[in-house]
């Protein structure tokens, strides 16, 4: 379960100070699928980075599954992140020098999963995303949809409790986008919590709840039934 209280994030340069998040209070329950929407620059991605333990808030509290993480160091956050959060990006962010199989295997290497177990789980994830036949290809040899399915396989291979998706269909055509959203929906149905940033109302329709941000604040929350 995720909870933020009065979350603030300021970005300062020598000349200007920008408030990216301004008092975000948010609860995400286990197994929930939340979409975050809002215009460009409203703080969606900043919020996602903080929720994903990639960044610290300037102020406020953030309770991640019972642990207060707002003041953690980079090293502590990295330890906590490992295995408990999966990420899906708009630009896929696969490592070009690694094959599909090796990209998906990566989180398990850092978790020091034994080789047999690793092989089993990577193959499961690849089967699940219907990308097994491309296991020895490099990212540049895949279509956008295949790349994103690989990225989702990598996000789920360690069986995280939470998946964070940052505009996962942004670089895909509608057919591939639809497929990706269905996969995320299926993962959510199996109990994985998903928080997704999106511009697309259609994609947001897959979520249980839509949080609308504007100028770093939550302006509305809509629940789907």
């Amino acid at each position, binding site marked *: 379960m995720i909870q933020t209280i009065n979350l603030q994030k300021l970005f300062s340069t020598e000349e200007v100070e920008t408030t990216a998040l301004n008092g975000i209070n948010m609860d995400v329950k286990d197994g929930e699928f939340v979409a975050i929407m809002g215009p460009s620059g409203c703080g969606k*991605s900043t919020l996602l980075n903080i929720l994903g333990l*990639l960044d610290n808030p300037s102020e406020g509290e953030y309770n991640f599954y019972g642990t207060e993480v707002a003041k953690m160091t980079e090293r502590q956050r*990295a330890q906590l992140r490992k*295995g408990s959060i999966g*990420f899906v990006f*708009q630009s896929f962010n696969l*490592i070009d020098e*690694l094959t599909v199989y090796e990209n998906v295997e990566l989180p398990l290497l*850092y*978790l020091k999963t034994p080789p047999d177990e690793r092989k089993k789980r990577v193959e499961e994830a690849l089967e699940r995303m219907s990308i097994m036949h491309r296991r020895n290809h490099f990212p540049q040899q895949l279509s956008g949809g295949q790349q994103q399915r690989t990225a989702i396989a990598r996000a789920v291979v360690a069986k995280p409790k939470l998946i964070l998706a940052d505009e996962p269909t942004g670089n895909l055509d509608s057919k591939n986008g639809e497929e990706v959203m269905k996969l995320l929906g299926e993962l959510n149905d199996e109990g994985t919590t998903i928080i997704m940033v999106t511009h697309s109302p259609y994609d947001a329709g897959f979520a249980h709840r839509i949080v609308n941000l504007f100028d770093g604040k939550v302006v509305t929350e809509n629940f789907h039934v």
Partner: protein
Amino acid sequence: MFRNYVKIAFRSLMKNKLFSSINVFGLALGMSCSLLIGLWVKDELSYDRFLPDAESIHYVRVNFPYNGETVTNTVTPGPLQEAIAKDVPEVAAVTKINFGNEVLMKVGEITAKEKGHYASADFFGVFDLPAVYGNPKTALAQPNQIVITRKVAEKFFPNGLAVGKTLQLDNNKFYVVGAVLENLPTNSSLQFDWLVNWKVYEEGWMKTWGNNSFQTFVRLKPRTTLAQTEVAMADIYPRFAGKNFETGRPVLQPITDLHLHSDYKNGKSVGGRIEYVRIFSIVALFMLLIACINFMNLATAQSAMRAKEVGVRKVVGALRSSLIGQFLSESMITSGLAVVLALGLVWYVLPTFNATFEKQLTLDLTEPTLWLAIGGLVLLTGFLSGSYPALFLSSLQPIKILKGSGPALRLQTSSVRSFLSPALFRRALVVFQFSLSIFLIVGMLAIGRQMNYMRTKNLGLDRENVVYIPLEGEIAQPKKVEAFRQEVMRQPAIASATTAMSLPVNVQSTSGDLNWPGKDPNLQTNVSCMFVGGDFTKTMNIKLVDGRDFRTDSPADSTNYLINEAAAKLMGMKDPVGKDVQFWPGKGKVIGLMKDFHLNSLHQTITPLILCFDSRNTSYLLVKTRAGQAPTAIADLEKLAKQFNPNYPFTYHFLDEEFESLYRSEQQVNTLVNYFGFLAILISCLGLFALAAFTAEQRTKEIGVRKVLGASVTNIVGLLSKDFLKLVMIALILSTPLAWWSLSKWLETFAYRENLSWWIFGVAGVLAVAIAFLTVSYQSIKAAMMNPVKSLRSE
């Protein structure tokens, strides 16, 4: 995990072939220089350490107070050995040897010249050298026996045992082979192929304390220190040497220091060849650093390409430490690849290197220390070159990298770059690299200039067109020397000929025995001296300021002397010709005053010199050939030598070769600095080339926009080259004082030198800038010529 690192490393290497090959090739060049120098340094440091119980063997020198300073004699008088044996209980054994003779050895039809020494009987008490056959100790004790090395034994007795067989030396005496020694390794200060008992060689003058011509070695008793033994030796001169020499103090030098620490100043060892070992070691490190800098520069320059990977790895759970491990493993792998190439390069150039540096270095792959060194080199290079990129890349923050794609990613990573400022670090590295390169270029120019100065300096005597042959066998017989010389002078291609005890460009003998009426009894003198024959000044073209040369038809000349201006000054004589002096041969007169000429290397100032007339006591015939007629003169000499001395093979040398050999170390340094200066520039330029390629790629869009707005190709080339040239200029400014200081220090070792001029730095600077500009301009022109439409579309 490591397999994953290796995989990534190889795929990254293959992906950026240009940068990878520059990295690997540059590192390999740097490593091969270091390996070569490492082999050389190891060999230099190993001198004489092969000797059994080497730590207790010491070389004896003698310190004398001389006009407020202390002069150290490298050679010692004959009686010193007996005095030490008798009077110094700390010494277990003591021996003396002469400087070495080349004798003609003969067994049946086999004849060859071999170098060896006459050594006092306890030689093997000091040097416990391994014997192949026989007992060298008892063999050397017998005046009719000879000890030879395995090499000589195999040459003269190819069919069996040498011990007990007879050898003839110089077509004269016969010796029975008493023992055969194992060949001496090349890293031995002593190099000989035979030893004969001292008593066979000894003459009356060798028993005097005033004549320093021999080398003395001692072996100390166990648990005896050098200092303790020197104290015990302190009263030898006062007790045994007589009033004239009572101030002499023997000092000891460990034999393991003999090769590298042979220079003495004011009574103390002040270095020697060790300076070159140090310089070369520093050069080795420089070369490695320059190559490592390329790696660091290219790795950080390419960080934008690796940034995404870092971000992804961090997001999926990599800790910073594991990323540092990954990038260090990559640099180790590159370094490993480079070392393989470096070993190939070393193997290829080793024969040339050995020929240049007169070594027999080998790349013995069965030797564990070599593998240790290679392993160390891989780790050191990998760590040196990989540590900064590893620290930098692992510090990149995923949120700044992973947002967006294409231009967004580039924008994000460029902001990361400026935030962490590796660009500044890169510039500093280029400056450092070029500072070292400019330093080496200045070294190349300055050393080359000094070498040229030495080669062309007027020494005050002729060394061109002078041939010399050793006087041996029949023509060494006192009665025949002069007849032979006269016959030689009758040849039309020969202008003049003389005889001399040593070569006039390298006079080694000194004496403290010079006296004259009115000499201050407290004044101690140390003059160079030499026995010469008739026509010495004429043959060597030494200017006579006053008086005349020795004349063979003047019997009184056997106790007359020629002196140089420095000797006249020492004796306080304004017009020395006709004045009385006393030297070894007896009381006589100065008959000629020679203008000062260089009698040693240009490291030393011109010392007072006295020449004695004795055509019998000489070692060489020096022949001045007429200009352009050297081949005829040599043919004539050979004909005469065969006629006068039929049992000896004819050998001849040119005097300027002997002169050049005085500067062998300097020539080697010169060659080394030339090679390495060139390589340093090459490696630096490889790095600069890649960096320029990278910068041009990064600025493609900017170049496109500028061209669209009207910039010409020259503008763009100027824009791209300017930044690099600025760095080279800064390097020039930084390296100038350092180069000035260190080269001035080096030049100070020469009493006669070409001082450093500003133009050397100017030339080095212009060269460095020109080379850097050429390197960068290829990439700049390529970028500037690109169609802007293309470059903008690529964005």
